């Protein structure tokens, strides 16, 4: 998208809502080095949202939207769940259709965009909860990876069905007592990052969203690799503080506790060989550019 497309006709400027005016004047569409540090100094691509106070998912949303390398040409796909309450407030095109079909939607979407815009970059990013990704949508999640569809899948893993009031999901830990798991969950947390790797994802990360810089890094990697090579997968712990009985200020600590080296969200990253090569080339180019800029200054 050219930034021209969102400009407001001068005669109509004063009657546009202020959040739209802000979007035109100070959003970071097209800014090459955009990242989480823009938060607070630019218009974010997420407007006010209706998530609970202290919800780590809302932070994750803000970091991801600040980190997308190419929001002016990115289309996102969501599913039913808490995320679907946020997407209507997001200033990149996004699709909600049914529960669990997000990776099928994204497969068709990415292919349509490739047919329609063969010479341009159009990134597709799926963002859905654990129920949508692992339970009801599991086949479509994995089959998109088998087919090597070129888009990024992000799973907000809060280890339960939050939006419907706290039921067991496949990504819940074994033994956790929840609705529909009245004697505790009887089987292990599904090992989706491993499955992602075996299903052909070229970049897989399992982590929490406690560190915005980390989120930025993995999102940029995932989108770039998906654009050039093949499917990528991020599984991000965004605890549902409500359903696990935490207070609104305890989300961050919960994530820090869960990312300790022995815990289930210790940072894990898998990069396929072609993806490693791509990242190395990108980093080399960035270094070159930096050096050139330095020379220019001196």
């Amino acid at each position, binding site marked *: *998208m050219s930034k021209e*497309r*969102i400009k407001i006709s001068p005669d109509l400027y004063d009657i546009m809502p202020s*959040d*739209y005016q802000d*979007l035109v004047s100070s959003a970071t569409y097209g800014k090459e080095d955009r990242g989480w540090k823009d938060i607070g100094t630019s218009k974010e691509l997420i*407007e006010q949202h*209706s998530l609970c106070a202290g919800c780590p998912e809302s932070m994750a949303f803000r970091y991801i939207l600040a980190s997308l390398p190419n929001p*002016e*040409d*990115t*289309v996102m*796909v969501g599913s039913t769940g808490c995320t*679907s*309450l946020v*997407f*209507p*407030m*997001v*200033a*990149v*095109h*996004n*699709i909600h*259709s*049914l529960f669990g*079909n997000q990776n*099928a*939607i*994204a*497969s*068709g*979407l*990415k*292919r*349509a*965009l*490739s*047919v*329609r*815009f063969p010479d341009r970059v*159009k990134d597709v990013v799926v963002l859905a909860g654990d129920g949508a990704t692992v339970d009801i949508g599991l*086949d*479509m999640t994995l*089959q998109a990876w088998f*087919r090597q569809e070129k888009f990024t899948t992000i799973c907000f893993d809060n280890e339960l069905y939050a939006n419907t009031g706290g039921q067991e999901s496949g990504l819940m830990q074994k033994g956790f007592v929840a609705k529909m798991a009245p004697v505790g969950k009887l089987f292990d947390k599904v090992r989706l990052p491993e499955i992602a790797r075996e299903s052909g994802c070229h970049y897989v990360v399992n982590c929490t969203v406690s560190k915005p810089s980390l989120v930025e890094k993995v999102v940029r990697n995932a989108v770039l690799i998906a654009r050039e090579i093949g499917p990528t997968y991020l599984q991000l712990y965004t605890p549902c503080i409500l359903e696990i009985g935490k207070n609104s200020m305890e989300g961050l600590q919960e994530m820090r506790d869960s990312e300790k080296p022995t815990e289930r969200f210790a940072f894990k990253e898998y990069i396929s060989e072609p993806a490693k090569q791509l990242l190395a080339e990108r980093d080399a180019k960035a270094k070159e550019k930096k050096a050139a800029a330095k020379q220019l200054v001196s």
Partner: protein
Amino acid sequence: MDPTSVIGTKNKKGQVFTDPRIMMREAPRTPSFYTGSEVIKEAIRRASIDVMIAYPITPQSEAAALIGELFAEGYIGDYFRGESEFAVMSQCAGAAFGGARVFTTTAGPGTMRAMENFPMWAGARLPIQCIVTCRGINSPLSIQPDTIEISYLMQTGMLVWHAETAQDFYDWILMGYMVSEEPEVHLPLALCCDGFFVTHTKDVVDLTPTDMCLPPYDPYRSPVPCMDMECPPVRMMRDPFIMKSNYISYATHASWQQEVWAAAERSRKHTIAWLNGLIETEDVDADVLIVTSGTAVSQGREAIRLLADEGIRVGLVKIKTLRPWPEEELKEATKHATHIIVPEFNVIGWMAKEIKATIPRSERVIAGPRVCGGMTMPPEIIVEEIKRALGVRSGTLAGRG
């Protein structure tokens, strides 16, 4: 992009983007002897399809695979096999959200597996075309022709047309895109036929020239934004309606559902223009009328011929579109009839129910004969039904004992 601006130019296969009215109504036609599946392929060759997604299920597998050959020849932008009908219909939705002209096919249990997608397509105003080659839905598994799935499709908000012959199919696939892509319509189309009877039989079909094709789909004529980041991404609403249980939320959903059905109504005038009416009639001044859709119409024609030999005059109404439903047309066409015979290929008689709910003095409607589970409908059983209605004695049918 204005689609009219490409008229006269060529696509990469050398086909000329042609004004659809000229292509369908004025261009020379070549009679060709093809199976229904091959006819689908020939229509799609000329339909400027961007994306087709396939899944095996009898009796549509052949058509779906033939379109794969078109892709290999370069007529289609992208094509692949999905992993289930549910996934395929979602993949079609994704492609349509992204601004592509999308085509797919399914049948019977596949239609049911995919069902959650169809109201979503309509609600999202995606003008996808889905060919439905109807087959039985029950346990034990049946692969035989049976039209019961149409009754489910009729409540989804999609346009639903029911082809009688391969010729209908050929013309309606191409015309279907023209109707469903109208900005004031912009709805998906379920183009149904009776599986096997139409897909697996050969017939002479008059084809339009191979070197002419429909102008491409223009997603920017859509009444809802195309999801390609080429138009402003304003936030859609301040509070997602799913969050709210209040009157504004209900009213929004209600008005959107009404708008979907209103759009189907608005397709009427375009459909009438393209299909020469939502129904086709013969001798509707007769006392007895056969009113139905699909291949039951063909069997009705045979029955009419048999009865004419005995001096009994029977008229015919062929219903072409089920959504929109030709309510006024049916009231007018049936106003002289004393007996209205509705032969159907399904166990529940959905067509008879629809007609009864439409016309005055519904006791005139005889809901039958009906066959199901893959049985054929010999014209003789229609003849017998008519004679019974008229109080004429008829001989025992062979095989009835």
